[in-house]
């Protein structure tokens, strides 16, 4: 194949809670929107990769979309499901076998914290009995260590949430679209210190679809050319610190899957962090956005304190981060979350962001997901 893989169509079902609409149907909604956006029919789609964690097998959506006999492969990869679907779709086109295909992700989770059992994680029963199978507990432990090492204040965590809700006001697909003041965020009910309830995202629902094509096909379709310059997915290295860890190696927490996925993506794209105009970084909790700014190479550990105070990650700042409010404002449907970030980046590169549009006609956009137990996926788009 010559040229780059391009994203020629995007679709999204609003995130949050949609009673009476299954996760699968939210995925179907997104696919139809993406087909219309690309100006193609379902019968034109040559292959699909679909991700869902808790809302059923994605390939069953052929019943709704049409029994065209299309190749449809399900992806189950935790929080990296969307990123993995996109990676796989990209490879299918790069291989030269296909010229147009689909990456789709959707989910619908019960309310409240994710309910994990020790046996699903190869852990002894006592670990759950004693109250350790709690994801929020891990995230709080992780940021408490990071704040101690790198001088990050709780106010800085609050600023991340404040920005998320403010940006989401202008994102029609976001869930929580009311601004929340910094004081209310800091003084909200505590979930797991240092985090108040406003500082965690919630499990949610939603669906996202992306149509990928060869550059030649993209030109035929006449859509703005948005190139997928890099898509990487990596698992954890030694010395990482992950959820549900009864013990950690001495010196742990210093290496992450994100660092590897990010470095490889920049190498493939042939650019560096300083060249990125807008970024969507996994923010399942405020501290995640803070840590991921450094892990993805955008700043050094500890510099986030100044970056947030000076507004450098605001929509008008040096590097706008999570322009649609991220997971904090959109919630997290695991299968759809990573693709939402790429959706948002396509919107920004096309200049369709409306009240949340990054000024200056951005040419490069970065997305990053991270999940249990230490998986990360990164994409870099260019127009």
């Amino acid at each position, binding site marked *: 194949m010559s040229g780059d893989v391009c994203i020629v169509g995007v679709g999204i079902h609003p995130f949050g809670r949609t009673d009476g609409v299954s996760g699968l149907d939210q995925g179907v909604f997104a696919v139809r929107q993406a087909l219309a956006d690309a100006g193609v029919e379902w019968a034109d789609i040559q292959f699909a990769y679909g991700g869902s964690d808790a809302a059923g097998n994605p390939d069953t959506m052929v019943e709704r979309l049409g029994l065209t006999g299309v190749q449809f492969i399900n992806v189950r990869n935790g929080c990296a499901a969307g990123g993995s679907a996109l990676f796989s779709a990209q490879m299918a086109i790069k291989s030269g076998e296909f010229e147009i295909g689909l990456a789709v992700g959707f989910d619908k989770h019960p309310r409240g914290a994710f309910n994990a059992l020790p046996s699903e994680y190869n852990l002894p029963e006592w670990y759950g*009995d004693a109250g350790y199978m709690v994801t929020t507990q891990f995230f709080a432990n992780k940021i408490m*260590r990071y704040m101690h090492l790198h001088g990050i204040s709780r106010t800085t965590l609050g600023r991340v949430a404040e920005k998320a809700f403010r940006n989401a006001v202008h994102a029609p697909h976001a869930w929580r679209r009311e601004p929340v003041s910094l004081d209310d965020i800091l003084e909200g009910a505590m979930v797991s210190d240092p985090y108040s309830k406003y500082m965690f995202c919630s499990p949610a629902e939603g669906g996202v679809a992306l149509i990928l094509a060869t550059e030649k096909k993209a030109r035929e379709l006449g859509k703005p050319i948005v190139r997928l310059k890099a898509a990487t997915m990596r698992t954890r290295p030694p010395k990482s610190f992950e959820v549900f860890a009864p013990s950690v190696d*001495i010196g742990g927490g210093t290496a992450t899957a994100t660092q590897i996925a990010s470095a490889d993506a920049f190498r493939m794209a042939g650019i560096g962090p300083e060249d990125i105009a807008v970024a969507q970084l996994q923010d399942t909790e405020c501290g995640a956005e803070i840590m991921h700014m450094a892990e993805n190479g955008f700043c050094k550990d500890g510099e986030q304190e100044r970056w947030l105070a000076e507004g450098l990650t605001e929509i008008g700042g040096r590097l706008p981060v999570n322009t649609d409010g991220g997971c904090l404002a959109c919630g997290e449907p695991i299968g759809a979350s990573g693709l939402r970030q790429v959706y948002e980046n396509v919107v920004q590169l096309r200049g369709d962001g409306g009240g949340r549009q990054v000024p200056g006609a951005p040419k490069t956009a970065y997305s990053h997901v991270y999940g249990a137990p230490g998986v990360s996926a990164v994409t870099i788009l260019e127009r």
Partner: protein
Amino acid sequence: MRAIAEGLFTGETPPRLIGGRDRESGRVVFPCPPGDRFEPVPLSRTGTLWSYTIQRFRPKTPPYQGPEAFRPFPVGYVELPGEVIVETRLANVDFDQIRIGMELELVQVPLDPEAADPVLIHAFQPTGAAA
């Protein structure tokens, strides 16, 4: 009172936690995994606090088996020098006195103090603290 599981504590008084040492790499983990690859080793009774949080809501049941009447509890990681960093409850310490780096020692505490026959879990308390 009995421990929440077999193979967590040594039988001595006071007890120590039992970790596992990888017979090839020497890496120490907790708890000691089943199988032949890891050799059971008693871990240091003392260490320093590596990180912590306060669990402010009752974890979901299943799997949580703690008391129905929930009281927030501190939970964190303690670094046992030269061995491994172990996840643990913290005991006998005011929430606002908890500091990363503080000196800690192992104790056993009941998972549900009100239970007729409570099981014991591991916790670390400030060195020399009174129960």
